[in-house]
């Protein structure tokens, strides 16, 4: 008897179906060989079974929680480093609540001080003190110049924005998640996320456009204990083939759990985000 066995994995949500087709009958003498082959097949299937055992969506949610509490405040410094070594720095104060609300305020440089951004799900606004009213913006626009754009600065949660298309844990220390944007509103159509298996924290993320073009790579470094049970990378470095020889770095500080009222995430509050800082 001859059988073809294997595992076939589909896209989001990650599902795997086993197939085992019988081709024909053989005599009794071959049955031992067949049994051995089946054992071998099963042995080959062990990694695949483990593969299937990883719930990609649950892992992504865990990564989200490990990176940040669902509601928090943080300070971030963005450093754009030009090929000649010149740097430009931005400092942002950020508050996030729940799965879809986020607001950021620029504290530095002086020319950008008071500028704020607000996100409610797919709605995104920018407030410039000189304009004096919130203006709707798109997630792909760059608010700082350089490699980081709105989507990086105003990112909500991976599990909110992406489906898990495939999970690969063939590497002993890494799990690789292939993520597909849930809607066309998300800035990057696909992500390839390399995850530290032990810590459930991302090590590297490659972001692709729907055309398949690599837009940027984010490297997560410098795992730091922020207190309150938050232990995560404090540095994210980014490079992009679109910005050859440029590098951007995002540094985290003061990340802590904080629950602010929903009214903070409204247009009228954009000019007053400073009031949240203590």
């Amino acid at each position, binding site marked *: 008897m001859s059988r073809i066995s294997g595992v076939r994995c589909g896209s989001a949500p990650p599902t795997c179906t086993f197939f085992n087709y019988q081709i024909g009958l053989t005599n009794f003498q071959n049955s031992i060989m067949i049994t051995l082959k089946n054992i071998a097949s099963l042995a080959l299937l062990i990694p695949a079974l483990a593969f299937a055992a990883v719930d990609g969506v649950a892992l992504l949610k865990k990564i989200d929680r490990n990176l940040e509490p669902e509601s928090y405040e943080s300070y971030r410094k963005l450093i754009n480093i030009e090929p000649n070594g010149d740097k430009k720095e931005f400092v942002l*104060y950020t508050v996030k609540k729940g799965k879809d609300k986020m607001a950021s305020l620029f504290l530095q440089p002086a020319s950008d001080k008071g500028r704020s951004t607000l996100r409610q799900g797919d709605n995104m606004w920018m407030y410039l003190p000189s304009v*004096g009213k919130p203006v709707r913006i798109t997630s*792909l626009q760059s608010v700082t110049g350089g490699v980081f754009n709105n989507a990086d600065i105003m990112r909500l949660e991976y599990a909110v924005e992406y489906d898990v298309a495939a999970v690969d844990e063939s590497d002993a220390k890494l799990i690789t998640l292939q993520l597909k944007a849930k809607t066309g509103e998300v800035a990057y159509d696909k992500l390839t996320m390399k995850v530290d298996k032990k810590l459930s924290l991302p090590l590297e993320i490659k972001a692709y456009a729907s055309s398949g073009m690599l837009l940027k790579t984010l490297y997560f470094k410098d795992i730091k204990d922020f207190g309150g049970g938050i232990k995560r990378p404090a540095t994210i470095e980014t490079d992009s083939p679109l910005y050859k020889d440029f590098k951007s770095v995002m540094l985290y500080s003061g990340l802590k759990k904080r629950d602010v009222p929903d009214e903070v*995430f409204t247009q009228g509050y954009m000019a007053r985000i400073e009031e949240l800082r203590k």
Partner: protein
Amino acid sequence: MKTLLLAAALAAVAASVAAEEFTFDAAEFEKKPFELNGYVEPKLELLGLRGDSAAYRLAYPTEAARATLARSTLTLELEGKANLGDWVFDARAQASQVDDALTSRSNALVVQEGGVRYSAGPGLTLDLGKRVTRWGKGYALTTVGFVERPKDATDPTASREGFVMASVDWTRSLPGSVSAISFTGILLPTDGVTNADFGRTNDLNPAAKLYLLAWDTDIDLMWRGAGAKTEAWGVDFSRNLASNLEVHGEWARQRNATHTAVNANGAVSSTLQDSTAWLVGLRYLTQAEVTWVAEWVHNGNGQTDSEWASYQSFLSTATQPVASAALTAKAQTLALSGMNRPNPGQDYLYVKASASEPWGWVYGSAAVSLMANVQDHSWQITPELGYTGWTGWDMRARLSVLRGAALTEFGEKLASNKLELTTRYSF
């Protein structure tokens, strides 16, 4: 051994540089009780003048016609803030010095905005002071700016002076399709001295705005009560149809608005009429990351092309050296009374294409904008370049070209061409 020592020293230096590069402590950015910010902005302008135009003779009645004028402007803006718990005191003041071959004037430090705000919570604030309101969704123009000074369509982000007012803001976030609701109530008193630019009657001038974020759409309902100005109400909206496409619109109705027309002989007729104004626009980000803004604006109370031509014809006659002093004085009075306000016409098309970091020029920007008076076919086109690569510095170069037939809006402006070089240092 020497090589090893050198390598170790280099490694130590590199490590220290790396450590310096990537150090960040939020404690350095603790909120300060008192803050002082501002900017210094030198600007150089080269104007190509229409020396034979009525606009020139109105601006420089005693000067001979000239074709060019170089002007320098130095602006200082200071902004101070005191954060005292739930109370915030703030002021923004501006001073400038303008010099050219024909005039030299100093504008002393004038408070553009300032007052006190009390926050009873994130959803409730009370405000008293001189404030700039900016209603409407239009980028270049707005039809619902009921309690603000007119926007300069050629420089929509330029700072403006506010009006003295008391206001209350109430906001509530909600679950469901209507996710935010906000109410703003305003009293803008006039008494002949206070807010004289708004009106000179004794009135409280109430105004209100109701904002809703409903079904992912920003919606505002606005109202201004009768007082120094007539009653007006309006509505606007803004919505993202796709991640790269936003549409917006405004509609306003003003009751008993005064419509002034001047014929070629200088006879002034004023009529009261209910008028409607509206604006439709979009913002579109292309795959090449060029942002297009397009707006069509209709102001029912504006000057038709024939009314404007008649007025310009009168100005042309009244400002001639042979004209009587009374006629010239009448022309100047009319110009100061609002006939020469920005964008006086009825229908405008505004289009702007801008690109951040074009041609791989990091921190650079390039844009070109067009403002056209649709009725008289006159227009202004403005290409510009900007650069923000040096911390604290904003640099901008703009060239404005204004064209139109005789007696049209942009064909009769003081300058036919204008080159501006602006550098702003913020601190």
